[in-house]
């Protein structure tokens, strides 16, 4: 079942490659939408069939390179299933948004289908090398499709370097295990580096750096803003919504359960890196005049909260199990919430660029009169992103802050100021773009028609925001999936 979900988009991609590029564009996008809907339906079926409790469901294992212990091992649990669902939803939303895509549609669709397979595969992978394979393919797959050479090159080299550090960590784990294996489930139960030590610290350092570059945390985040500015709307939505989650997912799937003693030893480092990312990301976002760069830096801020949560889950003193479980659940919820909300924001900035030609906030003013639906959607997305209750962001951030404060009081209080700074920066953005007298950037020749949202734009954006609102108002349906797995993770970290 899981392999079907993962490889269905790739199969369609191969099929579409055989079609001539001059075929009607609606066929390509329609096929993409159809496969995404089918994938989402299959994911929902997996959700229904998920075994209660903390273990893995729908496991499949096929030996691949037995001499080094590498196998094709996939499975889902409460930590990865929300991310798989998030991926399916986001790619579906991008597929609908792509109905108005003006560029070479065949290459565009096949590339995104390949990326969909890679993203889905990473979240279900239960073998370190399989994880790494999908991790690296996501870098190659994403970077190739964009025209801006310098940003793509920077993105590729920087994140590739991080993935090499990750590979080094994986190899260190492999060499420490007895019998030697790359399988995540076996490594978790074997706990090869129990007791810590220099070797374990090096392994964790390598893995931490590799994941920190992808997340991204300060100071490894400088590749993110240029990558976003040069990307298309759907490209940014996938980058922020899914690719960044690969880093944070690596922390909860690999770093924490396989290296519990070392994680506990250095948990405060994770907390501090998280807090610095929160405050630094928010402050730099406050100073931006380019709306895409601003949202990119808020991604750094939101991912900082995740790191704060997983770090606090490793600090045993000061908090009881309820606090650590809240922090972990909040971290996973933040991954899902940030994916939905920031993807919606990037699709909205794509609309802005499509109508006005620029991302510079100073070029616009008073758009609420001309495009009320766009203004309303942007306002809702902005408030969701700043953590207003009623949306998923608050559910995540409240759990993280409440769960982390007993373990690390002072860092958590500092991180809480982040919600004030993000409120300020989004209000400033709303004021600059939508309020006041009307001003639109000059088009060459005739004045621009600044049309409101079309149906193909409204459906994905509204869908993502509705999902964020449902999670914000009725969070139990998501938390019931995450909580057993986060409880199991907290116990693994504490052993």
């Amino acid at each position, binding site marked *: 079942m899981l392999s079907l979900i993962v490889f269905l988009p790739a199969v369609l991609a191969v099929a579409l490659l055989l079609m001539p590029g001059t075929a009607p564009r609606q066929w390509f996008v329609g096929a993409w939408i159809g496969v995404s809907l089918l994938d989402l339906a299959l994911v929902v079926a997996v959700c229904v069939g998920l075994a209660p409790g903390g273990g893995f469901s729908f496991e499949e294992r096929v030996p691949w390179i037995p001499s080094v212990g590498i196998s094709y091992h996939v499975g889902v649990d409460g930590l990865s299933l929300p991310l798989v669902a998030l991926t399916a939803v986001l790619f579906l939303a991008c597929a609908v948004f792509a109905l108005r895509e003006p560029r070479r549609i065949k290459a565009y669709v096949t590339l995104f289908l390949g990326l969909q397979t890679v993203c889905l595969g990473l979240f279900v992978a239960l073998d370190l090398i399989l994880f790494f394979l999908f991790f690296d393919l996501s870098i190659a797959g994403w970077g190739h499709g964009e025209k801006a050479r310098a940003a793509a090159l920077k993105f590729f080299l920087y994140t590739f370097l991080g993935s090499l550090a990750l590979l080094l960590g994986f190899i260190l784990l492999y060499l420490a295990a007895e019998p030697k294996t790359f399988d995540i489930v076996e490594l978790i139960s074997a706990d090869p580096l129990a007791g810590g030590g220099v070797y374990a610290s090096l392994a964790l350092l390598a893995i931490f750096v590799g994941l920190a570059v992808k997340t991204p945390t300060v100071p490894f985040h*400088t590749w993110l803003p240029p990558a976003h500015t040069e990307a298309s709307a759907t490209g940014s939505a996938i980058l922020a919504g899914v690719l960044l989650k690969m880093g944070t997912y690596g922390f909860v799937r690999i770093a924490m359960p396989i290296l519990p003693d070392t994680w506990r030893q250095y948990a405060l480092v994770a907390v501090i890196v998280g807090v610095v990312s929160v405050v630094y990301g928010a402050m*730099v976002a406050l100073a*931006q005049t380019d709306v895409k760069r601003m949202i990119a830096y808020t991604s750094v801020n939101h991912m900082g909260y995740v790191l704060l949560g997983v770090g606090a889950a490793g600090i045993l003193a000061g908090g009881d199990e309820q606090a650590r479980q809240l922090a972990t659940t909040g971290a996973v919820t933040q991954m899902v919430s940030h994916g939905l909300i920031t993807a919606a924001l990037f699709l909205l900035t794509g609309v802005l660029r499509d109508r006005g030609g620029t991302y510079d906030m100073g070029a616009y003013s008073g758009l609420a009169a001309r495009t009320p*639906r766009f203004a309303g959607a942007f306002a809702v997305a902005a408030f969701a992103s700043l953590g207003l209750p009623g949306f998923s962001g608050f559910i995540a951030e409240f759990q993280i802050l*409440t769960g982390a404060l007993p373990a690390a009081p002072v860092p958590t209080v500092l991180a809480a100021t982040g919600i004030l700074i993000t*409120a300020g920066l989004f209000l400033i953005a709303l004021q600059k773009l939508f309020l006041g007298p009307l001003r639109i950037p000059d088009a060459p020749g005739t004045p621009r028609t600044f049309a409101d949202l079309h149906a193909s734009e409204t459906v994905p954006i509204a869908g993502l925001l509705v999902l964020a609102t449902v999670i914000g108002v009725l969070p139990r349906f998501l938390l019931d999936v995450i909580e057993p797995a986060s409880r199991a993770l907290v116990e693994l970290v504490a052993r």
Partner: protein
Amino acid sequence: MLAWALIAVPLLGGALLAVSGERADRFAAGGGVFLGVTVLALAVAAALVRPAVDAALFAGIRAGLAVDGLSALMVVTVGGATVAVLVFAAGEAELRTARFVGFVLLFAGAMLVTVTATTLAVLLMAWEVMGAMSWALIGYHWCDRASVGAAHTAFLTTRLADLGLYVAAGAALAGGVGSLALAELSDAAAPWVHVVAAGLVLGALGKSAQLPFSFWLSGAMRGPSPVSALLHSATMVAAGAYLLLRMVPLLETTGWAGPVVAWVGAATAVLLGLVAVAQTDLKQLLAASTCAQIGFMVLAAGSGGVAGGALQLVAHAATKSLLFLAAGAWLVALGTKQLGGLRGAAHRFPLVGVAFTVGAASLAGLPPLSLWVSKDAVLAAALEHGVALYVAGLAAASASAVYSAKAVWYVWRPLPADEPALEQPPTGAVSGAMRPPLVVLASLAAMLGILPLFTTGALAVVPAPAVWELVVSAALAVAAVALTWRLVVRIGSPPPLAGWLGLEHAAHTVLVRPTLALAGALARFDDHVLDRAVDAAARSTVSAARALDRRGEFSIDGAVRAVGAGSRALGRLARRPQTGQIHQYYAQAAVALAVLAVIVIVVR
């Protein structure tokens, strides 16, 4: 079920209207009134039935709603104020939109959740939503930059204070109150219980516009008058006082929190009372008065007088919303809210004038109106905690009499000969929809003083004010009113008081400008240092590669070339003996034999 219906009706109805946008404008006003009446009916039912529900929210933390004595008073107050405001707003053409009515209903739903919440998580959620709705409603005229700026100031100031609530939630968890139930917060372990108390006090003071957060309420007056009546007098700003009243056991447990809260309340009541006296704009006067009157509620909470504070809350809600609606009616009809411009307004529109006077009389604390009774209940509780607090309270009460009399004096002056400067085009009439709420609220403002006769249990007024206290406060109020009536024109507007104690400017200088400067500096650091460091690392790798190519390769290649050159040199050397001359070959052979012989002899 009743509790869920009570919050679901306004929240869902408001959300539906707000999202529908302009398409629903036609039925917005009527639909709003209908929903408001439904909410009021549900509120009255809930106050009688006293339901309690809860549901799972997070791990170990539940979401609970319950209506007890204090909440019953509050839900009826919120329901009533919402209906009054929605009816009034139906009379103003600009406000008959789905956006306005939707946001007002959403706000009402959030306020109802706040006053019925039994756990801190739900309280915080509703608290923040109220703040967002306040932003949306203050900035309703979004074309006006000043309104939007004021909305931002209000939202960000209250959000800063709300950080206290977030910290309090975490501290409660750390202190062992895993359920975050409000009733159990005072059981938290030390030192966390002090953090919890400090956080809750901070959040409450910010939301209630007490010192030092009072300045945001001044800017909030840029919103429409019904918004000022509902949010910024009757309900939202009172939510902070409500929270403190509910948390009186926690304040008493910590020892320091009660006195701090009482003194902040007293100080706000006195200082903001003086600020109100110095105002020349009617809405600003009423806003400063709101801060001061809520100061009384906060003083009551700090002194443990829950009943007095609750009574003050209800009486103030009726009185102040009445005054704001009257001011709004005059603003729409006459186009100005400056006191000088409102001369004779009561003569031109007598119904509004009489209602305004009744409200102002209640605000002044004249017997036997509602605020006189409630203020004395508060002062009786304050007296138990020291004469200084009581005296401060009396001073604040005198100030309230002064500014109430000032406002009434202006509106009852003879009609002016010249046209005053206008702030918006006047309509010249008070529409029919605006009158009923004014009448109802005026009667409530007058009669709510009898409420203590009906409250029992937790809301019984204990300690009850003694007869001499009642007489003293009544005499002070009458004297202050009489003195003001004679000397109004001599009341000046000293700049510190007129400018709301300069707090907004201070907040800008101390908080906003340094934050923006730091943000710019960090952005420059990010672009020029961090990013360039990464690029520099890449460039240095390329130049290291080139250097390696030029020098390293060259040296290694040079070693290989040296071997080749050396071999060639050796070869040249080896050619030297081949001269072709026999005598030299003989000489070479002789030398070689001699060397061989020496070697043989030495080796042997």
